[in-house]
């Protein structure tokens, strides 16, 4: 079960990040998780939102370069070693993590971590086999 992440190209220019999130706010779009990857000259803002299709349209209308990427949201036990336990599975199965970041909020007592894999389908299959919960679109919207 994959969910959609939005990636937005940000020129290294004053106020650009503000303009992006401001546009989303005005369109009543709620940001569920975010991270910024940066180089010396530009940044890429990655976000998970409640209404990704609308968000993409809003951003494009405002002149941003944005695209969508499939990611996997995984429930992780919120206790020491919880994340390590999940990563060990990927390690053992030779699944490569491109990047990851965490949700601000919890789902019940579990933390939510977002992964971008080079092979999402394989990762999802492995997670299912190990009885680790993967969250769907509806659950993400409900958080």
């Amino acid at each position: 079960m994959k969910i959609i992440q939005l990636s937005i190209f940000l020129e290294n220019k004053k106020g650009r990040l503000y303009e992006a999130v401001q546009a989303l706010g005005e369109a009543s779009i709620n940001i569920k998780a975010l991270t910024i990857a940066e180089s010396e000259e530009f940044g890429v803002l990655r976000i998970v939102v409640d209404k990704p299709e609308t968000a993409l349209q809003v951003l494009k209308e405002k002149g941003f370069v944005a695209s969508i990427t499939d990611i996997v949201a995984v429930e992780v036990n919120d206790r020491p070693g919880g994340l390590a336990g999940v990563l060990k599975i990927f390690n053992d199965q030779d699944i490569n993590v491109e990047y990851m970041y965490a949700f601000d909020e919890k789902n019940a007592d579990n933390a939510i971590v977002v992964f971008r894999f080079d092979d999402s389908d394989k990762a999802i299959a492995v997670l299912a086999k190990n009885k680790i919960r993967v969250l769907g679109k509806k659950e993400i919207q409900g958080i």
Partner: protein
Amino acid sequence: MIFNEKIECLERKRLGELQSRRLIDLVKRVSHQSAFYQKKLAESGVSRKDIHSIDDIVKLPFTTKEDLRDHYPFELFGRPLKEIRELHVTSGTTGNPVVVGYSQEDIDLWAEVIARSLCCGGALPGDMIQVAYGYGLFTGGLGLHYGSLKLGLTVIPCSSGQTKRQLKILQDFKPRVLACTPSYAMYMAETARELGVLTKECSWQIGIFGAEPWSEGMRKEIEHCWGMSAIDIYGLSEIIGPGVACECHCKKGLHIAADVFYPEVIDPQTLKTLPPGSSGELVLTPLTKTGMPLFRYRTRDIVNINYEGCACGRQSPRISKILGRTDDMIIVRGINIFPSQIEEVLLAIEGTQPHYQLVIERGRGGLDSLEVRVELKESFFSDEIKFLQNFENRIAKEIESVLSIGVKVRLVEPKSIERSEGKARRIIDKREI
């Protein structure tokens, strides 16, 4: 169709004879009429008795833009002001602008050479032309206007700007010919796409583009986008405006109206005339102009000249596309750079836009750096930093291999580089030289 077959197909020897007669007459005229040239000739120790044929032109002194600027506004005119029919103004290098005066004969000459140019590019009497060069002090609009009337075209004098209206007129009137700057043609394409106008299905078949240097890559882009043949026209206000030279359908150089504008190519440093085929600064002598006669005007444009006859039937010499300008040429760490070189590289790389800007800065150690800002094409955006960084590096390497100088490439958002509806601002030089 060849507009003036007798002149444009004149064999070289006969052309030389015509040029010789006209040069002798020009020197005679300025010796009587122009205080500026009387002084200039006296200083260089040349008199009209030294000029027997066109080959003697090398004895004459050069005229520069600074000469024109320093004799602002009317001192170089060869006729009393009341016999001047039209004035145009072009930017000077610094300080005063340059004023150009046209006699009635000059305006007729202008119409003639632009009619030749339009025909050369493929326009035919009865065609409709959308003139989207600025009308006013800039010579583009009115020059194309006069030439279109002379050739017998239906003129839509749109002038530049109001892009949405340009596109409406294009769709409703269906003109076959467009005349504007190449960057404006690109700008209109961008606006058309935003408005959902199908550019390929539009009626323009021929575009007469000039007033700024542009590359072969840009030509391909415009031709592909609009489904038209993009023709390069050349000229400068000091000489007459557009119409000095223009490409034919062969697109192997621009046919110069050498019967009235005598071309030479010189080394800009030594000022020596270069052998045929060598690239150097174009020097032009308008042989028959009376409003503001000039000789050996240094254009600052770098070209080479091909004297062979063309497959189109014209015998007139052909100048190359402008390879650069001696004054928009930038020198970074001792290396001469023409923005058109960088444009060429960018157009060959998938994922970039031909919208770019060069920023030159002087570092603390006195070392200059060149940053190339390039707009990222939306379809090429990747979520991954390393992909984008590799992309930047690839562009930098390609540019470096052409320029032999290290550059820093910076990807910027589409449409973030300033666009003008006339000439694009390509260079930001922050050095204080």
